[in-house]
């Protein structure tokens, strides 16, 4: 029930993000979700892609510092309070969220969540009736 995310360490210098996306384009990998966390000195690019193994190899071959992280993809009901209710379950279970970012999924809203206990996060959300994305669901036809 967990998704694999690619994380790339990037120095803040012009053109680095373009180079990553170009490398993925060259091997025909599609990016489903994308987020950049940055400080004044460096950034971390996080992505959900459709072919993570190929992407990982290609980026490593080009000298990027890449790693994979397990995250949870949650489909959020697109209505007022939808996000709040989901997070309330997470809080109650005592799970700490490290970061999250949103993306569009088949005209629905979805978020990627990285938590201190990702396994427990999946259990809590599925147990509360939420749609937790599986790897295969993200590969578009």
């Amino acid at each position, binding site marked *: 029930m967990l998704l694999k*995310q690619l*994380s790339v*360490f*990037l*120095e803040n210098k012009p053109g680095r993000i373009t180079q990553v996306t170009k490398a993925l384009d060259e091997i025909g990998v599609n990016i489903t979700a994308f987020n950049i*966390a*940055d*400080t004044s*000195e*460096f950034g*971390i690019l*996080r992505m959900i892609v459709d072919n993570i193994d190929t992407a990982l190899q290609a980026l490593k071959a080009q*000298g*990027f*510092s890449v*790693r994979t*992280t397990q995250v949870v993809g949650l489909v959020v009901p697109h209505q007022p309070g939808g996000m709040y209710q989901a997070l309330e379950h997470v809080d109650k279970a005592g799970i700490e969220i*490290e*970061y999250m970012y949103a993306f569009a999924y088949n005209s629905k809203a979805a978020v990627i969540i*990285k938590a201190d206990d990702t396994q427990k996060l999946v259990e809590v959300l599925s147990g509360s009736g939420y749609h937790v994305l599986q790897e295969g669901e993200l590969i578009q036809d």
Partner: protein
Amino acid sequence: MIWNEHAECMDREQLLKLQNERLRNMVSRLYYNVPFYRKKFQEAGIDPGDITGIHQLKDLPTTTKQDLRDNYPFGLFAVPQSEIVRLHASSGTTGKPTVGGYTRADLRTWSEVVARSLYAAGVDKNDVVHVSYGYGLFTGGLGIHQGAQKIGATVIPASGGNTKKQLQIMHDFGSTVLACTPSYALYLADTMKELGMDPSELKLRRGIFGAEPWTEEMRREIEAKLHLKALDIYGLTEVIGPGVAMECEHQKGLHIFEDHFIPEIVDPNTLQPVPHGQVGELLFTTVTKEGMPLLRYRTRDLTTMTVEKCACGRTLARLNKFLGRSDDMLIIRGVNVFPSQIESVLLEMSETEPHYQLIVDRVNNLDILEIRVEVNEAFFSDEIRQMENLAKKIKANIESVLGISAKIKLVEPKTIERSEGKAKRVIDLRKLVD
């Protein structure tokens, strides 16, 4: 084992007396026999009779490699050429070689300190000493050879080159001691592996390695691959050759044979002694040398010194790890900074690679030091907080070693140029204009 207990375990007060007496004698020899030094003394307004002991060394002129070049080849000799019985020279990478001239007494002193070095390494007359240092103008081969002969060991003057043949000889002649550069020791080990030879087929038990800087990591590698105990020997052609200082079996620094070579650790700028235990440039005054005695010779090697008595019983001061060259020193906000200090901090941290670059700039009359550090791929985290904590940790560790704060910039692995050229380690953007 101690070759010369009287000299090596002497009470330090007694040693000081001996050093003072020898220095007085040396100063007068320099003044009366070497025009170069006489001129220096006169310029500094020092009368040789004013010098009573080594506490005054700090006021005396220093000698640099450039002085040796300027007086090439024999200008610094203190005896007529008829007294010189041997010449050696180190091949300078730039310009002229550095020459060393030895009298009979100098050769005796040299064999004596090498004999002491071999005993310190646990080598005696029962050993078969395989000398793979080059023989010739280079001091390595003949230097170790004479000392090994003095202690009565069986000496194999193998010299450098023809590695397969060397291995064959080591095997057939039962060599127990290998003397060579640490990098050649590793090369020998790799060749053995290629030939399918197991180190247990050899009888090697000690290695006397020197003539180039090496790390603890290299020591462990050599010891594991050759099944011997690897010991560090230090020396310079200018001072005498190998045997100026030698590690004992406790491997806790290199004992300096202070009755012959008086060490000083000084600030490379002021040439004044640094507080005890601090890093500085190593200087040697060769109080007993006749052929080419040198006063406060600047080795450019950076290190620290310990004077506590060693577990081996020797009272001689010990040199600790060499930290680099004073030529690389930077002065930032008035503080001496050696790139090697930063390297050692990074080497101790598993999260970083020892690849770094220092960028010094001056903004509003204040020196700014930025250190670019490569992040170890294995420790790269996808959480900003952890990466920032890593930067903070590096900053704190550097600050505690250097005493000044630096800006830490984490950079992608393999982005700092790998060349050994020192220019790339340091980029100094300061423009010292009014």
